[in-house]
Structures are given as structure tokens and as C-alpha cells.
């Protein structure tokens, strides 16, 4: 019988994870057991983008049934320190807001109760008085002199500026035939895993240590941030992560502030605490990829050759700089020239803070933004030089045969053949047919375009890349580089193999791939290998690079597992060599046996050999330790700290992705339809091709979302506008087409398995490829994502047809933009202006006409405070209202300023009402403008939009009513409208 062992690496074997997931037995974080007595947390978040916290009253909330504690920023500040950041800037952040809130969604109060329902009940009894401040929302405006400061102590919203130059960019631009320029703005978005954050923390006073269970995904450099914040050594912060997580995509590093929060809460109340993030919390407060403004220029020759790039990047990190920020700007640094052989490069990187949710680690991590600029610019070069876009790409690619290739900013491109990849994609993807399809469509008058994008996909981040943000002198003191990974192969007394590792999987199938690698090394089947990827910092090997990010698995943890398995194999071989009387280097492993290479019948079962290390350790070679528990660790030597010229090999491996697509735009609706999409990947050796394809599909789908649907929207006042999955538009099976994947495998030269990353490339290539196709279809210079039908319609439909003669266009004031509601109206009252005026200044009458007014208190002359219940359709809320009349011009006009605060959010607005005598009565006219934030604004998009808007509109109309305005509504017989009530209150009747 042949003993030849089948190799599993490279095969598309079924996943070992799937049985548990398909039958529902896999435990996600919310399913994990908690200690009895665990309290459940709910978090009250800021409805304001920017405000001082004047007072917080939690007394009523603390007294509610089942509530154990209600904590504020001051409580947390007492026992924790601000989060560490990479910059030396006074950007202080605790787990709860202290003194000031800086974004909608910022945690302000945490309630702890016997269950989540009661914890949320407690939040509705918390009273907070805010003094609102002007927010900085737009990144460019935030950089201007006089802009509101997010952090006063910094003195500016720009918290870091770094200039870099490589080669001789000035000469390149001076000598260029032409300079092609473009300014792009990349939106905020996130990969929004379906499972939200979970943090379950128990503080043990006896050992002064924290035991954390969380779906934290690393990088474990952040573990240091947590332990420092909680003022313990890292050994006293035990981090346990589950084997199953409901998607990570980078986002789940951002659970760390909540781990600190729950840790602090647990310490304060002396009980374990658990928090599960809900969807509104996630969308408003988890993290977003930074939005970025890039001005990019290329020095080009008339034949399309690019000789230099100039970047001016302004990256918006929201309200705080949280670890591992500003990774998105520096993770791509070494590869700023993309897939192109361009030696001259100038870069200015500016980091700006604004009153938005802090930016974070999201799949693609800086790549989508950077490649959007480069690949849009290359398309512009083709258009301006009247060259073919594909040919311009091909002309400028890093040529074949020069690998390893040192890119201008320091990336060491490990392997590849980009021109060959292009040709393969062109051929297999049938580019010529696509061009013909475009010609035919255009001949019929249809809007059809083709887009291209070529990118280099970096993987496994150099832990030293962020130090490039520091000046040379500073980083010389403490040079950082490398990326350590760990895995352990343990063979138990009965010879079964167990593997643990530091990959912190988020659904990619790491258990399966590790079982393939270890099985091949030990001559076993993947099913023989038990992989447990729960991770526990108290027991498992870990380092700062531990975690699931930067597509590191195949070139890090997988390599560590390979090394651990090779160590185990070497040990088994030495033991077996005694038994078989064959030198260890002459032994083979296969089908569960260890056998002599030249005489397969001379064999012993692997489990017996392994067992002997446990049962008869005395028989082991003298220098051999008993048992078999082998740790593989590795850090690739290529990941050096940045050099004195600011060059940094920011990642270990560099794959190549080339995409092209055809899109058609519906002339009536502006909808963009992806007609065909081809994506070519050279990701080195594929360890499991089916899983690699799955990664491509997933990245592609999110990228389609980013291109066409997904954006975190903020109002001008910084209110957050899409807090539901009905408003933040994740594409469904209907919207995502199947891409054609073309593969090429050029093994990496810097990782023993030859594999590169594969999970992020399309996040970088696809948004810009689709944008290029749309620009091609419409013949326009630039577009901004996402390409919603609304946005595309504005590009193709020209001036709107005016209203018919005699009809008036609705005034702009009647329209509602985002969270801003404005309007105007007129009404007629039979009483003369004097009487109406007097009625309006009479608090009793005012109270009687404010709908649902429970109590009206006069604060000052013409300044009132009231409690009101207002509703719209089914939606009802209880609010505190402040109403002020000013600019009095009796009895002709007055300005009304109002503010509402309540659990549903708040609104602020003002209006001017004028009274004019008419036919013995009064003609009232009014206009108003209000801004809404909080829950109503956040969920006020699609699903609940009607309710939220009606609520707010009705409220203001009632305000206007107080002033005698409002459109004359038809009163319902059973429920007199505010209008009839007003008239009744004025003693007028109808």
C-alpha cells in the first residue's frame, strides 16, 4: 500500500467550522455564560455633536427598580486614565464623556441593572443639561482659522502635519509635459458586522485584576491601551475572545473603549458587568473609516508615462484619535505609488479632528481612500491625453522581472508579474467583448461606461509603520518594526493533535486552514487536527501584533502554525528514529504513520510515538523535554523600522489586483447597474482557494455598497442621520452581482507558505473601478461616492423643468434637508392684531395652546420652560421645552426661539412671526427653521422617517401656532386640532 500522503494545503476542503455554525451550536459572544449576579449595562449617548455638559442628574434613575448603579464620566475618571494615543497632544478621552461631548453617539452615562430592559428604563430617567457649542463637521472647514475647536487644549483641529518627499518630485513636475490634477473626497462608511460589540468584564478586587470576555479582534497593541486606561499591568487584564465572532472587518477593535467602560463599572459596583451593543449604538458610535480629502497631481509625459505624484491628504478622524489611529493614513504609506513604477513622490499628510464619531479600523484600512485618488487620477490622465485608460495603466505598471522591488516610499514588493496579470484578465475577462458592448449600447443612446483599477494589496502590517508619523529624532529613540505571530501544536497522551493560535478569527475559516497546514506537516488528515481558536491572554501566547487585521493570517499565524508543526514533527521524528532505527532525516510522515523513506513498511503509528513522550518520558533522548507542546513564533525580517529617509516597508506581502467593469446608468432614475465585473487577483499561493474566493466575494460586496449605497451622513450641525439598517444601506443579494474572478499565483518570496493577503483588495479597487466606469459613461471629470440614484440623477438630468405658468415653486424654505426642517405659512385670525398679540404674551394662554403641555413655568419675561408630550401619528415623546420670545415689535412681529430635549433626541429652532391687520382680523405669517438631532434624527431616515419628521414638524407648527400662525388645518371632529384649540384659547372660535 502506498503511504504517500495527500497534501491538503492548496485544496478547497470543507470548513471544520461549518457544522457548528449551520446547526446553531456555535456560541457567539452574547451566548457565552456569564457569572451569576452579572449586571447588564445600557449607555446613554450624546444627542449633540458638540456641547458642554452643564449638569447630570441621575438620582431618579438610580432609584428605579432593578437598577444597581448609574455612572457618569466623573465616576469613570476617578478610577481610569485617558486612552493612550500615538501623538503627544492633549486629546484626552475617557470611556465616558467628561465635561464636554464631542460627537453624536458619545457615551455620557452608563446604567447597570438586573437586565438590559431595566437598564434602558433607567436611562430614560437621567436628566442632562447641555450647553451647545458650534460644531466642526466638515474636515476642510475645520482646518480654517476660527473654526470651532474639538479639543481646545490642542489649539487647532489639525493635530498632525507631516511632509515627505521621495526621489525628486520637484524636478519631475518641472520637467513634466503636463500636470494632471484632481481633488477627491472619500466618504465615511463602515463594514458594520451583523453582530455588534459585546464586552463582559468582571473585576476581582482580591487580585486587582480584570477578566474580560469580548469579541475584541485585536491588534493586541490595543490591549496595552486598555490596561493602561484601567491602571493595571497587562497580566492583570485577562482578555478572552471566542472562537466565533459575527464578523469583524476590523471594526471590532473598536470595542476597546467599552471594555474599559465595563471594567471601570465592574470595579465601581463590585459585580460582573455585561454590555451588548445595539444597532443604533453601532451605527452612531462604533467607528467609521475616516473620510478623506485628497488633492493629487501627476507629472506626466505626453505618451502617458507618469514620472511623479504629489499628494495632499487631509484625513478626518472624528472627535478623538483612538488606537490604532491614524493607521489608515500610514498603513498605506510605503505603497503610495500603488502598482506603478513612479520614483518621485511628495506627500503631505494632515490629520484633522471634527465633531463626528471617531474613525477606526475598517477593512481596507486606508486603501480605499488612497486608491480612489490614484486610480481616478490615472483615468483622468487617459482622458486628458486622449489615451486608452487600460493602456495608461499598463504603461506605468511596475514591470515584470524586477522583484523584489523597492517602491519610492519604501514598500518592498515581494513578487508578481503585473503586466501578465493584466493580460490574463483582459483575455479571460473578455475585455474586447465588453468594449464592443459599450459601443453598441452607446450607439443606441444608452449611458454605458467601462472602468478600470489596478492596485497593490498590502498584507500583514509592519508594527512600526505608525512611527513614521513621528519626526526622525523622536522615532530613533525607540525604533519599532516587525510583527510577531504565535501558534501552538499540542499532542496529547493519546496522540491527538490540538492547535491554538493568535489569529482571533472573525469568520474567515482559520480553523480549517490551520488544520490543513498542521495535517500536511504531520501526515494526518485535517479532521484529525482539533483547532481551538478561543484566545486567552492569561494562557495563550500573544504579542502586540496578535489579532485579526491587515489580512495578516496567511503570512503570519499560518506561518507560526507551520513552524510549530515542523517543530512537533522534528521531535516526533527524533523519537521515532530510536524505535525504527532510522535517522530522523530519513523519516516520512503519512496516513497517521511515521515510516522510513526507503522502506515504508518500517513504520510506527504517530499516536504511539506522541504518546511515548507522555507515558515513557524516560525513554526520550536525553536533551529532549517531555510531552509535545511546540510553540511556533515568527516575525518577518523584512519588516524593518522606517529608515532615515522616511521609507517604510509598511506591510510584508503585496498582492496585485486588477479590475474592470461595465456599468449602465438608467436615464430615467439615475440608477447605476453593474453589468459585468471582472477582478483579477494574484495573492501568491492560495492555501485554500475556495476560502480565498470567499474573501474576494465579501470584499467586493462591501465595496459595491461603498460605491453605490453606504455612507454615514451628518447634518450641518453634526447630527447623525442614519442610525438604522433602513438608512445605512447595506447591499442585499439583489444588489450585489457575481464578479468573475481570475486568479494567478505568484508565490511570495518573504513568507514560507508563499501566501499573501486576499481579503482587502476589492475594498480598495472596486469603489474606484465603479466610479471610473460611471465617469466614463457620463463623460464627466469627477464623482463622489456613494453613487446613489439621487446623486447620479442630478448629474444627468440638467436643470429641472420649471413649474407650469402661474404655479409657484415651493419655496426652498418649505423643503426639508437632512435633519433640518424649515417652513413657512400663513393664517388668518378674526381678532385684531392687538388681541392676538396680547394672547401670545399671556403665559396661561400659551400653556393652554402648547399641545400636551404638562407644566409651564415662567423663567423670565417672555422666557418659559415647559414639559410637553407631543406626538405624530403613533410616535409620542415627552420633552422639556424652552421657549423664548424676542425681538418684540408689538403688535407686528416677534421671534420665537425654542429648544426641546427628551429621550428621543432634541431640536432647536427659531421662527419669526408677523401680524398684519386684515379685514378687521389679523393675517399671520411665519417662517421657521429647526434642526433635529438624537434618536429622531438618527433613525429618522427611511423606516421611521415619517414618524420622526411628523413629530418634529408638528411640534414646530404648534410652536408657530402659539404665535398665532399655522396653516388652517381641517379639524377632526373627535380630536380638535391645535388650530381649533388655539382659536378657542384666543376666545375667538371659528
Amino acid at each position: 500500500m502506498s503511504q504517500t500522503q495527500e497534501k491538503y494545503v492548496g485544496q478547497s476542503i470543507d470548513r471544520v467550522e461549518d457544522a457548528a455554525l449551520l446547526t446553531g451550536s456555535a456560541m457567539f459572544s452574547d451566548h457565552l455564560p456569564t457569572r451569576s449576579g452579572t449586571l447588564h449595562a445600557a449607555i446613554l449617548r450624546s444627542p449633540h455633536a458638540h456641547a458642554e455638559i452643564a449638569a447630570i442628574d441621575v438620582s431618579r434613575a438610580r432609584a428605579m427598580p432593578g437598577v444597581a448603579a448609574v455612572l457618569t464620566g466623573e465616576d469613570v475618571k476617578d478610577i481610569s486614565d485617558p486612552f493612550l494615543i500615538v501623538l503627544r497632544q492633549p486629546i484626552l478621552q475617557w470611556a465616558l464623556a467628561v465635561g464636554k461631548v464631542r460627537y453624536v453617539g458619545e457615551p455620557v452615562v452608563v446604567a447597570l441593572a438586573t437586565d438590559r430592559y431595566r437598564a434602558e428604563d433607567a436611562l430614560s430617567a437621567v436628566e442632562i443639561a447641555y450647553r451647545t457649542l458650534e460644531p466642526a463637521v466638515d474636515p476642510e472647514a475645520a482646518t480654517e482659522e476660527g473654526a470651532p475647536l474639538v479639543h481646545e487644549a490642542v489649539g487647532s483641529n489639525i493635530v498632525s502635519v507631516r511632509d515627505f518627499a521621495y526621489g525628486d518630485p520637484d524636478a519631475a513636475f518641472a520637467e513634466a509635459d503636463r500636470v494632471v490634477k484632481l481633488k477627491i473626497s472619500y466618504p465615511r462608511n463602515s463594514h458594520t458586522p451583523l453582530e455588534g460589540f459585546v464586552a463582559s468584564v468582571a473585576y476581582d478586587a482580591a487580585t486587582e485584576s480584570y477578566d474580560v470576555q469580548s469579541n475584541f479582534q485585536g491588534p493586541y497593541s490595543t490591549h496595552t491601551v486598555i490596561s493602561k486606561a484601567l491602571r493595571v499591568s497587562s497580566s492583570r487584564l485577562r482578555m478572552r475572545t471566542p472562537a466565533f465572532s459575527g464578523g469583524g472587518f476590523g471594526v471590532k477593535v473598536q470595542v476597546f473603549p467599552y471594555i474599559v467602560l465595563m471594567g471601570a463599572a465592574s470595579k465601581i459596583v463590585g459585580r460582573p458587568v455585561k454590555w451588548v451593543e445595539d444597532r443604533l449604538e453601532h451605527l452612531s458610535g462604533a467607528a467609521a473609516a475616516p473620510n478623506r480629502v485628497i488633492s493629487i497631481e501627476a507629472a506626466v509625459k505626453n505618451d502617458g508615462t507618469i514620472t511623479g505624484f504629489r499628494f495632499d491628504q487631509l484625513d478626518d478622524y472624528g472627535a478623538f484619535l483612538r488606537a490604532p489611529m491614524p493607521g489608515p493614513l500610514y498603513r498605506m504609506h510605503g505603497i503610495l505609488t500603488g502598482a506603478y513604477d513612479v520614483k518621485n513622490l511628495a506627500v503631505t499628510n494632515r490629520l484633522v479632528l471634527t465633531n463626528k464619531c471617531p474613525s477606526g479600523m475598517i477593512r481596507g484600512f486606508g486603501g480605499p481612500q488612497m486608491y480612489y485618488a490614484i486610480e481616478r487620477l490615472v483615468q483622468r490622465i487617459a482622458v486628458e491625453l486622449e489615451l486608452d485608460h487600460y493602456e495608461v495603466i499598463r504603461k506605468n505598471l511596475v514591470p515584470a522581472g524586477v522583484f523584489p522591488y523597492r517602491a519610492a516610499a519604501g514598500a518592498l514588493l515581494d513578487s508578481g508579474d503585473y503586466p501578465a496579470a493584466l493580460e490574463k484578465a483582459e483575455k479571460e475577462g473578455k475585455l474586447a467583448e465588453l468594449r464592443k458592448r459599450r459601443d453598441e449600447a452607446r450607439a443606441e443612446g444608452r449611458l454605458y461606461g467601462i472602468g478600470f483599477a489596478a492596485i497593490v494589496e498590502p498584507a500583514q502590517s509592519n508594527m512600526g509603520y505608525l512611527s513614521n508619523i513621528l519626526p526622525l529624532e523622536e522615532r530613533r529613540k525607540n525604533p519599532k518594526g516587525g510583527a510577531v505571530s504565535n501558534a501552538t501544536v499540542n499532542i496529547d497522551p493519546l496522540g491527538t493533535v490540538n492547535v491554538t493560535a493568535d489569529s482571533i478569527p472573525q469568520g474567515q475559516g482559520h480553523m480549517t486552514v490551520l488544520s490543513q497546514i498542521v495535517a500536511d506537516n504531520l501526515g494526518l488528515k485535517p479532521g484529525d487536527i482539533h483547532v481551538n481558536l478561543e484566545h486567552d491572554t492569561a494562557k495563550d501566547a500573544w504579542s502586540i501584533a496578535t489579532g485579526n487585521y491587515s489580512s495578516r493570517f496567511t503570512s503570519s499565524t499560518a506561518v507560526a502554525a507551520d513552524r510549530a508543526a515542523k517543530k512537533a514533527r522534528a521531535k516526533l521524528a527524533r523519537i521515532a528514529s530510536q524505535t525504527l532505527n532510522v535517522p530522523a532525516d530519513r523519516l516520512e510522515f503519512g496516513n497517521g504513520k511515521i515510516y522510513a523513506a526507503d522502506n515504508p513498511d518500517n513504520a510506527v503509528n504517530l499516536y504511539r510515538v506522541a504518546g511515548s513522550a507522555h507515558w515513557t518520558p524516560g525513554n526520550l533522548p536525553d536533551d529532549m523535554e517531555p510531552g509535545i507542546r511546540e510553540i511556533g513564533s515568527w516575525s518577518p525580517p523584512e519588516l524593518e523600522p522606517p529608515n532615515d529617509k522616511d521609507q517604510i516597508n509598511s506591510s510584508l506581502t503585496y498582492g496585485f489586483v486588477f479590475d474592470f467593469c461595465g456599468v449602465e446608468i438608467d436615464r430615467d432614475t439615475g440608477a447605476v447597474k453593474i453589468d459585468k465585473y471582472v477582478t483579477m487577483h494574484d495573492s501568491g499561493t492560495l492555501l485554500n482557494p475556495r476560502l480565498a474566493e470567499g474573501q474576494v466575494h465579501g470584499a467586493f460586496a462591501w465595496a459595491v455598497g461603498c460605491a453605490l449605497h453606504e455612507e454615514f451622513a451628518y447634518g450641518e450641525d453634526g447630527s447623525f442621520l442614519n442610525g438604522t439598517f433602513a438608512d445605512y444601506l447595506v447591499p442585499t443579494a439583489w444588489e450585489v452581482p457575481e464578479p468573475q474572478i481570475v486568479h494567478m499565483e505568484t508565490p511570495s518570496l518573504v513568507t514560507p507558505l508563499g501566501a499573501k493577503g486576499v481579503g482587502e483588495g476589492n475594498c480598495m479597487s472596486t469603489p474606484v473601478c465603479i466610479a471610473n466606469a460611471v465617469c466614463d459613461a457620463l463623460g464627466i471629470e469627477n464623482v463622489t461616492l456613494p453613487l446613489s440614484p439621487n446623486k447620479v440623477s442630478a448629474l444627468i438630468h440638467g436643470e429641472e423643468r420649471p413649474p407650469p405658468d402661474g404655479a409657484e415653486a415651493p419655496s426652498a424654505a418649505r423643503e426639508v434637508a437632512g435633519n433640518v426642517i424649515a417652513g413657512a405659512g400663513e393664517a388668518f385670525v378674526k381678532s385684531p392684531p392687538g388681541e392676538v398679540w396680547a394672547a401670545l404674551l399671556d403665559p396661561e394662554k400659551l400653556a393652554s395652546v402648547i399641545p400636551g403641555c404638562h407644566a409651564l413655568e415662567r423663567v423670565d419675561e417672555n422666557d418659559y420652560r415647559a414639559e410637553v408630550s407631543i406626538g405624530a401619528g403613533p410616535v409620542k415623546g415627552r420633552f422639556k421645552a424652552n421657549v423664548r420670545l424676542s425681538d418684540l415689535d408689538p403688535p407686528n412681529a416677534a421671534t420665537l426661539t425654542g429648544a426641546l430635549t427628551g429621550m428621543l433626541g432634541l431640536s432647536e429652532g427659531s421662527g419669526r412671526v408677523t401680524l398684519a391687520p386684515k379685514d378687521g382680523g389679523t393675517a399671520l405669517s411665519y417662517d421657521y427653521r429647526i434642526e433635529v438631532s438624537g434618536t429622531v434624527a438618527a433613525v429618522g431616515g427611511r423606516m421611521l422617517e415619517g414618524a420622526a419628521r411628523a413629530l418634529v414638524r408638528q411640534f414646530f407648527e404648534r410652536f408657530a401656532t402659539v404665535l398665532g400662525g399655522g396653516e388652517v388645518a381641517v379639524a377632526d371632529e373627535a380630536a380638535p386640532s391645535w388650530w381649533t384649540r388655539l382659536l378657542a384659547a384666543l376666545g375667538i372660535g371659528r
Partner: protein
Amino acid sequence: MPQLNRDTRHAISFTLNGKPAQGHAEPRMLLSDFLVHELGLTSVHVGCEHGVCGACTVRIDGAVGRACLTFAVQVDGKKVDTVESLTPEEGGLNELQKSFRSNHGLQCGYCTPGILMSLSAYLEENPKPSEDELRDMLSGHLCRCTGYVNIVRAVMEHVGNAP
């Protein structure tokens, strides 16, 4: 059933995956929380709590429904099925589940039980859907990992409509 008081945990008896089950819940407790935290089911996953993502989809008296938009007290006396109900008598995976595995129709697996429950009902009504029909039905679920490609492949292969 009389009026149920808000502050009381009321007894709920129902049939869960073919077996009698009991628990207690206040009127406001969502079925999703009840199944996970009162009854310990690990197959029910909560993704949005407003009925959009589909991760918590179960069958209630045979019809698919969002557990996050249903109150536990509503299922008293009813029949609730979760993905555990798909396990064949002999154990292991049913044919559709096997097809998901062999086609890599899941990654993190968080959305998967909900999708399987929708499919279990849908394929009873439409045993051989076209790809368009299938994608239309799947649009009631969000998946962030797979790009849906392999979910579609798994189902089309299962129903014998693979290209």
C-alpha cells in the same frame, strides 16, 4: 388569555422545535431575547432589532418571522422552529446545510441560521426557484461576509438548478 401585567413574568408554554418548552417573560420581552437568554438557544442571532437584517429569523406556526419584532408572550401555545429543527433524525446536517458547507455559503455564520429558516419555508412553497426569485427572497437578509455568491450557489445546487 387575560390582560398581562407589565411587571409580571408570565408563564409561556409553546412547542419549540417539536418539543414542549416553557419559560417566563414580561410582556415586553422580545422573542429573540427570550429564546437566547431564557431558553439558552445559541442559534438565534440578533443583528438590528428593527426587522431589517434577518439574523433572528425563525418560523412561528410555520411562517417565517423576525424574532426581534415578536414578543415572547405572543408565541404562547404556538409552534416555534429555529435552525435546530432542520437537523435530520440521524443527526448531522440536512441536504441544504450540506450544500452550504460544500459551497462555502457561510463565513462568520451569524446570518446563516436566519437564512436557513427563510429557505426552509420558502423552498416548501417554491421548490425550484430561479436565481432571480432566490435573490429576491434573500434580499430579506443581510450578509456582510459572503457577497451572497456562494449562498446563491449553495441553494441553486441544492434545488438542482445549478448552471
